[in-house]
């Protein structure tokens, strides 16, 4: 049933893509776009509704470490590519009980709300997906929840083996505002997960490297359980570990609302 929806979604997306930009794309560009599309599905959309306990370790070049611990809930809004994220912070102590709600839209800036418990305040946030750091880490909002597929153009540069896995190597060049000038992605040919990504800045120098350091089968779905984003210029890096991952959690789209911010769903944020 779910596979059907997934396949239909993929087929529809492919048709839409070819309908909108297909005629202007050369064959290899279209292939690259389809690979990126599959990667986004596998990385950001799979399993319907996701719950995970997330631990982020932020380490400076001189070894100072900070931690962020949160529970993440994610749901795909039926009938499109919209998504909703809910994050509840367990630590550190100064952000404990804070909750963060994101309505993600494929073609425009996300709606974001932050609940600040000490003020009883639900506040809309005006940060930019492409450039804002997620909770002071090396990941931007976009790195966490995916970049609009139409915001970059893609080129399949080569196919090569990366860490014993055959991969597609794709270059992304932004057509709208981005934190990078270009990005090279190594995408696993079977699971379609990104194994490595290199981000180049305006001077075309490498500044950030993403690696998927651990991939596990969760409910039969290949899932990145450890990932690292390293800023090679500053030496700062962020390790993100996913634990207690559950797919197809019985939550509804409406559960991702102001009520959840003020009164988080206890059974899911333990």
């Amino acid at each position, binding site marked *: 049933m779910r596979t059907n929806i997934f396949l239909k979604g993929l087929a529809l997306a492919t048709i839409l893509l070819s309908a909108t930009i297909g005629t202007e794309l050369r064959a290899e560009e279209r292939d690259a776009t389809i690979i990126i599309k599959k990667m986004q599905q596998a990385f950001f959309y799979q399993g319907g509704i996701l719950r995970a306990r997330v631990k982020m370790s932020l380490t400076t070049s001189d070894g100072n470490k900070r931690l962020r611990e949160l529970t993440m809930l994610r749901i795909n809004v039926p009938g499109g590519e919209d998504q909703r994220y809910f994050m509840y912070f367990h630590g550190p102590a*100064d952000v404990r009980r804070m909750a963060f709600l994101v309505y993600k839209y494929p073609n425009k800036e996300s709606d974001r709300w932050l609940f600040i418990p000490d003020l009883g305040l639900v506040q809309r946030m005006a940060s930019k997906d492409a450039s804002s750091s997620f909770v002071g880490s090396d990941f931007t909002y976009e790195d966490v929840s995916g970049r609009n597929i139409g915001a970059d153009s893609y080129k399949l540069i080569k196919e090569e083996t990366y860490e014993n896995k055959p991969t597609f190597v794709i270059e992304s060049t932004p057509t709208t505002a981005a934190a990078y000038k270009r990005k090279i992605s190594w995408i696993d040919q079977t699971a379609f997960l990104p194994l490595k990504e290199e981000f180049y800045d305006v001077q075309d120098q490498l500044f950030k490297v993403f690696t998927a350091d651990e991939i596990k089968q969760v409910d039969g779905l290949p899932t990145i359980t450890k990932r690292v984003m390293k800023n090679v210029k500053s030496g700062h890096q962020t390790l993100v570990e996913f634990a207690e991952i559950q797919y197809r959690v019985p939550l509804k789209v409406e559960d991702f609302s102001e009520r959840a911010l003020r*009164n988080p769903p206890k059974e899911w944020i333990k």
Partner: protein
Amino acid sequence: MRPVHVFAVLASLTTLAGDIVYATELHGFLLGNYAARVTGDRRRPTSGDFLLGEERLQLKLSGSNEGGSVYFAKADFFHDEVAGQNDLDLREAYLSHSAGAFDFTVGRQILTWGVGDLLFINDVFPKDYTSLFSGRPMEYLKRGTTGFKTTLTTEIASADLIIMPFFEPNRLPGSDRFFFYDPFSSITNRVENRPRHDLANTELALRLYRPILEWDGALYAYRGFFRDPAMQLDSMTAPTQVTINYPKSSVYGASLQGNALGGVVSLEAGHLDSRDDNSGTNPLMPNSQTKYLVGHQRSLWTDFTAGLQYYGEYMHQYDSYLANVPAGFPSQDRLRHVLALRLTQLLKYQTWRLSWFSFYSPSDKDFYFIPETSYRVSDEFSVTMGGNVFGGAKETTSFGQFKRNNNVYVNMRYDF
């Protein structure tokens, strides 16, 4: 950082006793908070420069069970160096329970709604301006209210109904520490007359809200009292006593907030009905007003946000107000308006925060600036420094009256 499970033993006993799991957690912080007036003015010959000198231990105890019940208590134990005393402030203590579409919260709780940033129209809940003006962390701007809150969430709309039987005034700067405008400063005989804790004096606040085309829409209604004090004299000609009271008020309003113009746009308005002075003839009581604000907040570059708000208060019975202002009294304008600017830059992976907040009123010709910088040394320890700068053409306006209280503050905090 790591939760301290003081009641871990108790929790495990409970687990053994039944299948309901209670998770109890203890957190909090130790805060040292100091603010010194830099104008050289002394409130009394004996008092020094310090507006604030305090050490606070805040403890937060919370727990919940699988059945949707929650308890939460937050208490500050503090030593006030300026007053030379120890005290306790029970900031929040509530029980809450969720059942289906309903959430019930009973007890002392901090309540906030509305879309203004430090500008309040429909947020009628108690505030502590003394904290704001002397550089306590922002959470101290809000005070707890004892009440019964019911939230109903439905697909059509959601509603919050809050019943507050115990009136809680705003905390405003007092003459023990602050300089401010007092039209009757020569009359020292003062009595405070708060609304009695009668059932008839129970305050009601209602909010209805729902998304409207990806915007957050809300309607508000409140029936209760002004939280800022009004003054009454025993005689207008030869006054010997000032009675501080809190006149009846109602507020009806609406707000909209959403993503637009490359950022967040906020709109809010409210009609404030001064029920004890509908005719506007008592100049010592607040006149009925319409308040409104328009705000826009956007991120201009990485980790930098700018927010601009325009706020206005329009007095309804201005003619009768003017006709009744006693000679020699400063009269207010029909329209008071304020521009507020907030700039925030985060640096070094958000461990440094530089911020600027300012109010400027073109009608009152006065201002209030809060420059602040804070550095998070580690996940647990942070240091914040800032200033409160007031000024204006007159010493009788909202911000201008505080200009002799310009101060710098520092606070250090360890969270656990």
